């Protein structure tokens, strides 16, 4: 294994871990906002790690350029999407879950 | 057992096809019908593409050092079919919008009922 491959493997491993933890958050967290928090953050960072890992495998080719394009695109759109989503949820009157009470949004107004 | 391994792909596709077909004929909401139609057609596309796969082959774009390619012909056919599918969907959706304008509903039951009333009136 060349050093490049080792770096790439490490990055891929980090990415996989982040993505997986984000997904667990997406499944296990109690309300939209916390799920958004879990998914939004890990999603972007995980994607960055995985794409970086792939870049080390690609070498100096057109593939590298395309990977960078994808990375830039994801970096730009991922947070924007999360932000807009959160804003839309808030505007629709969905309340975040606080101190253990039932989330008001669950099958509440937002689901209608 | 060998049949299972060599054909399971097709069988799953058929199950998909039949789910789509079921939505088209059993569900009354017109938008849902079109969604079902989409699933039905997409599954047929998957059937075609599965038929073009050659095990060990790669995408049919010439590259150095690669000798085994999958069959490009089904890909071409399905490209055409996908376009036909979206054309049908667009037309169907605009019909639905107009139906909603005139009948006030997009449920098959309501539309049929409205039709029935009119027929009785005219008799």
């Amino acid at each position, binding site marked *: 294994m060349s050093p490049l491959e080792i770096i*790439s*493997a490490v990055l*891929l*491993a980090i*990415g*996989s871990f982040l*993505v*997986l933890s*984000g*997904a*667990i958050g*997406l*499944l296990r967290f109690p309300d*939209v906002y916390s*799920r*958004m928090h879990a*998914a939004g953050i890990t*999603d972007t960072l*995980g*994607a960055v790690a*995985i*794409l970086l*890992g*792939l870049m080390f*495998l*690609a070498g100096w080719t*057109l*593939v590298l350029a*395309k*990977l960078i*394009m*994808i990375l830039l*695109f*994801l970096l730009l*759109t*991922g947070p*924007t*999407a*999360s932000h*807009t*989503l959160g804003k*839309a*949820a808030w*505007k*629709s009157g*969905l309340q975040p879950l606080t101190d253990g009470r039932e989330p008001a*949004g*669950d*099958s*509440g107004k*937002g*689901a209608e | 057992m060998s049949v299972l391994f060599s054909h399971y792909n097709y069988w799953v596709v058929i199950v998909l096809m039949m789910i789509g077909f079921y939505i088209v004929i059993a569900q009354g909401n017109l938008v849902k019908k079109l969604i079902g139609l989409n699933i039905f057609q997409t599954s047929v596309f998957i059937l075609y593409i599965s038929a073009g796969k050659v095990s060990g082959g*790669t*995408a049919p774009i010439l*590259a150095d050092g690669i000798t085994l390619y999958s069959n490009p012909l089904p890909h071409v056919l399905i490209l055409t079919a996908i376009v036909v599918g979206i054309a049908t969907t667009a037309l169907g959706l605009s019909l639905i919008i107009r139906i909603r304008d005139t009948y006030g509903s997009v449920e098959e039951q309501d539309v049929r009922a409205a039709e029935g009333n009119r027929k009785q009136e005219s008799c």
Partner: protein
Amino acid sequence: MLTVTTITLLVVMAMALSRAFVGPTVFDRILAANVFGTKTVLLIAVVGFLFGRPEFLDIALVYALINFIGVVGMLRLIEYLEEDKQSTEDGR
């Protein structure tokens, strides 16, 4: 490592899919769809390397684009429906 990443991504896709099924609010579903979309982008990229033909990354770029447009479209629809509902309620 590519294999492991692929499997992880598949698992994550399945999890996102189940969140999209369960909901419960529509924003959960949109979030799940968004997560699902980005994972698809990554999967295509990784699979390209796994099968040794990584030059088809154009597709991944299209996925990312489509995913973004889809999310925006969904959100606009929700907002439209909300406002529509409010305006009819006001009308009453």
